[in-house]
């Protein structure tokens, strides 16, 4: 692989100072996206800042109010197997289980996944459906923003130079969430998603008060549709609307028309599955 220098900070403050040093300095976490770009000659960084050795940067916790906080360096496998995530955000565990293959999930981090900004990913759509926020740290301090605002487009995020993602948080859920994640690939089973569909039904008592449909991997950014006081009959219309509103990126995995069709069919299926479980 092309040469670069690897700096190895122990604290976030130190890392941010190292990152704030010009154009060809970049953070590296799992390296599963970045090292491929370096190997292919698409990136030629002079210096990489290794975030893997930051202390305590991979915890997954839930506070008293019910907010779940995942530190950026948690691997996709840690997210998928975390008892907190499995119990409280099973749809995120399910989506993470479907990322890549077991070897990559042991290396890849959730922070790297979101910061990479590749639209053909599983976690971003699910996390947008869950109203997740990212925490960004830089030399000028820490800020938080909605993941939906952080993801600007393919390989484009709101990260400023010298900034890094330090955590992703999911706010407390009011009532009970029933959810379904459907991943569709056109190649082998562990391929990047052609479409990743999240359906959520939120219940207060036994009453469905909100339905959500998030479409990931199809367009440059995830699309989120929400409907309050949903009825079963309104769900197909939601999937229909998603397929009309989405702006698919045509590629090897399918044409825009094909992807629109997928969104309609899978959207309907995911919503129906969540509804059936929510209101049996």
């Amino acid at each position: 692989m092309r040469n670069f220098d690897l700096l190895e900070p122990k604290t976030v403050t130190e890392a941010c100072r190292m990152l704030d040093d010009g154009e060809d300095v970049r953070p590296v976490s799992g390296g599963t996206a970045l090292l491929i770009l370096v190997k292919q000659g698409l990136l030629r960084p002079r210096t990489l800042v290794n975030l893997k050795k930051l202390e305590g940067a991979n915890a997954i916790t839930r506070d008293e109010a019910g907010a779940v906080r995942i530190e950026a360096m948690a691997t996709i496998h840690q997210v998928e197997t975390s008892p907190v995530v499995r119990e409280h955000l099973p749809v995120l565990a399910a989506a993470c289980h479907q990322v890549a293959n077991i070897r990559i999930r042991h290396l890849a981090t959730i922070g790297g996944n979101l910061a990479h900004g590749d639209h053909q990913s599983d976690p971003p759509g699910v996390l947008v459906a869950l109203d997740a926020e990212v925490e960004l740290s830089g030399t000028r301090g820490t800020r938080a923003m909605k993941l939906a605002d952080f993801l600007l487009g393919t390989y484009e995020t709101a990260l400023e130079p010298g900034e890094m993602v330090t955590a992703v948080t999911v706010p407390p859920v009011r009532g009970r969430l029933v959810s379904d994640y459907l991943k569709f690939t056109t190649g082998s089973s562990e391929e990047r998603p052609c479409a990743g569909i999240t359906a959520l039904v939120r219940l207060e008592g036994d009453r469905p008060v909100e339905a959500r449909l998030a479409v990931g991997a199809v367009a440059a950014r995830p699309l989120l549709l929400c409907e309050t006081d949903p009825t079963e009959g309104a769900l197909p219309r939601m999937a229909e609307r998603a397929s009309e509103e989405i702006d698919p990126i045509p590629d090897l995995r399918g044409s825009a028309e094909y992807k629109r069709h997928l969104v309609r069919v899978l959207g309907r299926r995911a919503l129906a599955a969540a509804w059936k479980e929510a209101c049996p």
Partner: protein
Amino acid sequence: MRHLITATVNGRERELSVKSSQTLLDVLRDDLRLKGTHEGCSVGVCGSCTVLVDGKPVSSCLMLASNAEGRDVLTIESLARDGNLDPVQQAFLDRQAFQCGFCTPGMIMAVKGLLNENPKPDEAEVRDYLSGNICRCGTYVEVMAAIEDLTAKPQ
């Protein structure tokens, strides 16, 4: 830039001086001359470079060598002891679960990872876990048979 790290490789503690841009695979093959770990795709897809780090399978082609600091690395060379094959190796041999053998070290290390995590996986779990290990000779049926032999035996 170089980094001085300490890692356990196949049971032996090693002090290694690794380059910033070296992957674990580079260090295993080029510096430690452990040629059993193969480089197929170099981009995380094929699984022929699979080794265990702290008991878990990773693509050594995408792991920076410096991150092996303090970790326990196992390659295919660690399995046979005193001329006796590991049960997974023996099962692969019994079932002829390879042809050219290029994918085999990675396939066997992935199976070791699976059985570490889950000694009694069902067929769906095996398929899911190994879905990222690719065999161009198409020995999947024999690999499944070898694993069935291993998991059917009382342990």
